[in-house]
């Protein structure tokens, strides 16, 4: 490979100028002439049977143009593997905040007045508000008619249990009974958390004269959403267009449709467009939070610190509907014992329904939870054995040739390198003052490649257009990494490339932002499209320059003969010769996960991981012994990224993940009251500000290439999975114990220190 000119270099984001000028359009900024305002009416009850919805009075109020409810929208259930949910209750409303109707009116005030005037008769039922309560025989059923549900054969559904998986190898009970081992057990509790994007959900929709529908949205997966919405409303897929805007943060919270559903349901009844911009509070009533739940760990190690057995059991609260909740439980069992060589394992996760909000795939689902519990548990075991936390990890960490819990053989393992780099960056081993502590945690994570298509066009007017279906949610993957990859191949300045944001009219399908996959999958498609255009340009340049393709290179916007830089032709001129444009297409196919030993797993579904990466974070904290208040001074994260195509983006993910991890560890808790009412406002849900954020050191490990373009691996999720574990370890080092419940508030830290 010749020297790279564009990829691998730190450069400003290509969308930055518009963003600092306030010119970037997010969904609520889309101007639509004559737009009606839409609002949603929500159930105030955690669990109720909707007996009657009467819209007569509401419909007669001034300005009201449409009311959507169960009586005038399609009856079929939504399909997330278990068909357990309807657009509006039929007949159960299963969480406080579940939509029961939506109204479109000339003004927001009129729409709200009409929503208030809709008469809903509820039969109030006893809710289930705790995951362990959901498992009790006496617990009410969140889905009384679960036996009638259609589901994929791979899914588990038994009463309130809506997911279960297990990984077993060796024999843990025999190992725990060995006379030469020390056994330690710990119990943990996790708070649910919000994705915390700053842009609340919004959508707009307009019925088109041809019977189609246009939807403006800020989604992580507009193509998937379009297909789902078209299917539900019985529209032709080709006539439904989703135009994705810039997204003001997503973090897994904007994969499932929300405002889009109701804007569309209303617009289909109106001859004017309907826009819906949720307030923070409304957004919180409809949030897809990170899973809360419980975990129990029991592990055994010999006196020299060698791990011999682990049993881990998770119970996760997935809320009222399955949605995309399954991943959290599957990933948790993959993380529970990793990245450590432990011959005897029994790892199990159960997902349960409760009458709470639908938990979703928030950035690194299961990652912060599983790693926090596992690493703190192992710190405690190491302390019992009198082994240093870092040495304990280095002693047990995977090496090349080791197997994952489910029997995937690993190569290119970089755990020890990551551990050492993170530890060095915070001064591991430096004598600590009272109340000062250092901790460390590590993990592995997957890469993912979904389907993606891209189109690249060099035009005679000198412009270059790149269409990818991958949305720009803030990571810079779509706005910057993708044009960098195209620019590298075409030999142009990436700033010359105009990115057409994800718009289904471009017909460049993309599976969406998720699983840290964007630069991998969309990048594969873009690289292929660029290669296609490159080949076509060389063919044209052969004629124009009367030279052989082998002697021609693309550079500085021109095709030139190697060694004679003046013997050149502009790419725009080649496009003119080709009739106005030279265009190419590329696509990425879904890549299958590697082999593993199916006999070790039960109903898992995600038991082997493509191009795994290894990450360690170390934390340096101060704890006030009188109050238990924790100040995080520094987080260092060393992450095996394969290759950083866009280092600015990769470092940005790691720094942002560190502070999101600080929040989940110390302050963020989505609180519910005894009626199941959520408190999602920012006065109650405390995200870190600039004064809470620590210094962050980032170490990119690029010595173990992954399966993506240029050897990249998925980057966005791992960096939030390890800081909470490292902070817990640091608190433990500082005061002798750390809370077994998140967030690790001052009171919990103080009590843990007192009770140690």
């Amino acid at each position: 490979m010749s020297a790279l000119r564009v990829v691998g270099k730190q450069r400003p984001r290509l969308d930055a100028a518009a963003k600092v000028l306030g010119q970037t359009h997010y969904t609520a900024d889309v101007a639509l002439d004559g737009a009606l305002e839409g609002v949603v009416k929500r159930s105030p009850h955690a669990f109720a049977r909707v007996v009657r919805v009467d819209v007569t009075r509401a419909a007669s109020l001034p300005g009201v143009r449409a009311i959507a409810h169960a009586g005038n929208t399609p009856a079929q259930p939504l399909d997330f593997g278990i068909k357990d949910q309807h657009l509006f209750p039929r007949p159960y409303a299963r969480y406080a905040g579940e939509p029961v109707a939506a109204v479109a009116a000339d003004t927001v005030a009129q729409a709200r007045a009409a929503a208030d005037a809709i008469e809903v008769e509820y039969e109030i039922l006893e809710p289930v508000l705790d995951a362990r309560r959901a498992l009790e025989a006496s617990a009410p059923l969140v889905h009384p008619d679960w036996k009638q549900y259609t589901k994929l054969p791979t899914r588990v559904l038994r009463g309130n249990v809506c997911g279960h998986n297990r990984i077993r190898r060796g024999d843990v009970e025999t190992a725990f009974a060995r006379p030469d081992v020390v056994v330690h057990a710990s119990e943990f509790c996790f708070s649910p958390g919000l994705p915390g994007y700053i842009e609340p959900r919004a959508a707009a929709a307009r019925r088109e004269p041809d019977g189609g529908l246009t939807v403006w949205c800020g989604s992580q997966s507009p193509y998937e959403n379009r297909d789902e919405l078209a299917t539900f409303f019985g529209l032709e897929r080709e006539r439904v267009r989703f135009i994705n805007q810039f997204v003001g943060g997503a973090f897994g919270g904007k994969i499932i449709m929300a405002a889009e559903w109701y804007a569309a349901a209303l617009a289909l009844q109106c001859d004017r467009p309907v826009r819906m911009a949720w307030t923070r509070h409304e957004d919180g009533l409809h949030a897809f939070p990170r899973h809360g739940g419980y975990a129990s760990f029991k592990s055994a190690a010999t006196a020299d610190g060698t791990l011999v057995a682990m049993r881990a059991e998770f119970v996760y609260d997935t809320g009222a509907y399955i949605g995309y909740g399954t991943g959290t439980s599957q990933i948790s069992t993959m993380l529970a014992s990793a990245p450590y060589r432990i011959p005897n394992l029994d790892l199990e996760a159960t997902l349960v329904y409760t009458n709470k909000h639908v938990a979703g795939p928030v950035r690194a689902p299961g990652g912060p939870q599983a790693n926090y519990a596992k690493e703190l548990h192992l710190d405690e075991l190491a302390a019992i054995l009198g082994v240093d936390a870092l040495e304990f990890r280095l002693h047990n960490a995977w090496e090349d040739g080791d197997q994952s819990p489910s029997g995937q053989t690993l190569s290119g393992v970089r755990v020890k390198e990551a551990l050492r780099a993170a530890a060095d960056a915070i001064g591991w081993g430096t004598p600590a003052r009272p109340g000062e502590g250092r901790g460390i945690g590590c993990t592995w994570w997957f890469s993912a490649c979904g389907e993606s298509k891209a189109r690249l066009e060099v035009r005679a007017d000198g412009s270059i257009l790149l269409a990818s279906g991958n949305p720009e949610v803030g990571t810079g993957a779509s706005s910057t990494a993708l044009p960098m990859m195209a620019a590298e191949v075409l030999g142009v300045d990436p700033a010359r490339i105009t990115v057409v944001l994800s718009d289904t009219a471009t017909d460049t399908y993309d599976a969406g932002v998720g699983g840290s996959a964007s630069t991998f999958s969309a990048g594969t498609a873009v690289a292929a499209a660029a290669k296609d255009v490159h080949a076509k340009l060389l063919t044209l340049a052969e004629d124009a320059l009367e030279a052989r393709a082998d002697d021609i290179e693309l550079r500085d916007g021109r095709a030139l003969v190697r060694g004679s830089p003046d013997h050149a032709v502009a790419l725009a001129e080649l496009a003119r010769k080709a009739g106005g444009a030279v265009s190419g297409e590329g696509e990425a196919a879904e890549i299958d996960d590697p082999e593993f030993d199916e006999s070790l797993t039960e109903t898992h579904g995600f038991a082997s991981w493509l191009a795994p990466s290894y990450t360690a974070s170390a934390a340096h904290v101060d704890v006030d012994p009188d109050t238990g208040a924790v100040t995080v001074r520094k987080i260092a994260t060393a992450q095996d990224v394969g290759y950083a195509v866009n280092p600015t983006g990769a470092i940005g993910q790691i720094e942002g993940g560190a502070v999101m991890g600080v929040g989940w560890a110390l302050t963020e808790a989505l609180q519910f009251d005894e009626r199941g009412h959520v408190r999602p406002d920012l006065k109650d849900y405390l995200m870190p500000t600039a004064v809470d954020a620590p210094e962050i050191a980032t170490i990119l490990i690029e010595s173990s290439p992954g399966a993506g373009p240029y050897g990249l691996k998925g980057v966005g999720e791992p960096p939030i999975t390890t800081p909470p574990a490292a902070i817990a370890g640091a608190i433990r080092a500082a005061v002798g114990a750390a809370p077994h419940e998140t967030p690790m508030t001052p009171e919990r830290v103080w009590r843990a220190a007192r009770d140690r």
Partner: protein
Amino acid sequence: MQPVTLLVNGSAREVVVEPLQTLLAVLRDHLGLTGTKEGCGTGYCGACTVLIDGQPVNACLFPAVDADRRDVTTIEGLADDAGMLHPVQSAFIERFGLQCGYCTPGMILSAASLLAENPQPSDEQARSALAGNICRCTGYQTIIAAVHEAARLLREQGRAGEAPGKRAPIRGRA
């Protein structure tokens, strides 16, 4: 309904507002200045930060009537008339101080206001001045680096302590 004259980014704009209508709603819905964002509507996130007579306020809580005949600086008014970016804007680009960009307009205005009062803030002063602006993407480190870089650029250009944005020729309450 009440007539109000807002001196927005150097121009007098006449609007008729409801008694408790927020400045945010007036800027976005009446004047089409959508660079100012609504993040929480309750004054916690700072995405809607604008400057009133140079001081940062949460436009989501600020009654438009209280801005009558006062200078309002929004993100659209920070670059100069020739379109040249304000040093805080260029520093945010060069030091990677943004990702999704939704908090960016408010963050930049808070930073610009800080630098007008304190041309060479410490890390701690910069973090404290921006504590009312939540960013979920960056982890803040690049934002603080951008503030320092902007301070350097302003000093280099002889603009240290300069009030950000444009002032209207008429000022003060009638």
